[in-house]
């Protein structure tokens, strides 16, 4: 099991970049939330690689905290998606770009 640390970090960087591109190019809020999950997972992977390279368990502890944060974030995010879908009948984030323009929303 001789894997250079570089390559583990590189995998984390590649996954993070893919998640970032997904977050930037998609306008569907479900896909944006999934891209955020990919980015969080990549950050956790970097923690695990570093922790294993040093032979310490701290990296795994940090991954558990990232997991807890991801769970809380997803529950609130999905509740927001449901609210948004009930209001606008769409998953397009551009529909929710105005704060208090009732007229405009009811027309579209």
């Amino acid at each position, binding site marked *: *099991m*001789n*894997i*250079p*640390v*570089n*390559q*583990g970090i*590189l*995998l984390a*960087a*590649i*996954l993070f*970049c*893919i*998640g970032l*591109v*997904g977050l930037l*190019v*998609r306008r*569907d809020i*479900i*896909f944006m*939330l*999934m*891209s955020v*999950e*990919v980015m969080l997972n990549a950050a956790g*992977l970097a923690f*695990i*690689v570093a922790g*294993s390279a040093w*032979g310490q*368990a*701290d*990296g*795994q*502890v940090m*991954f*558990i*905290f990232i*997991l*807890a*944060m*991801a*769970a*809380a*974030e*997803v*529950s*609130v995010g*999905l*509740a*927001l*998606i*449901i*609210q948004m879908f009930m209001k606008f009948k*769409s*998953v*397009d984030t551009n529909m929710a770009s105005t704060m208090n323009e009732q007229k405009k929303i009811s027309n579209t």
Partner: protein
Amino acid sequence: MTILFYIASFFAIIATIKMIIGTNAIHALLYLITSLLSVSVVFFILGAPFVAALEVIIYAGAIMVLFVFVIMMLNLGKEGVKEEHELFNKKVLIGPSIISLALLFEMIYILMHQSMLPVTFNEIPPDAVGKLLFTKYILVIELAAFLLISGIIGAYHLGEKGKVVHHRFLQKENL
């Protein structure tokens, strides 16, 4: 064992790319689950079996099932795919991809031109993680508990539907 790492990484990257360019939400979600399972294999090879199990149980098992339930509730169907085709303009993909790729190549350059020794990954058993978790990081555990309970309250508050008031004096509250 080394070749397993490369195979799992390759599939993780492919599945993630397929996820961000997909148009059907459920298919994209299945690709994301495959990507998470591949990353879990990587964790196992790196010598973190406890975290590999947690990744499968919590990420792929619980969080992704939440996504599946919400997509089922929204009931997007074929119209959703059609709407997605209108929303997702492939031309938009070019700009952010080029800039992210440039940053990624910088990262690759830095990582490849640094002499890091090939480290032998020793397996870190779950009991070491548990001991560290409940001694050194006990305060952070409490903070994570706060975060989770605020997440529960927030999700409950945001997820409830507007209540309909039938009393004639309180009818204005329906607005």
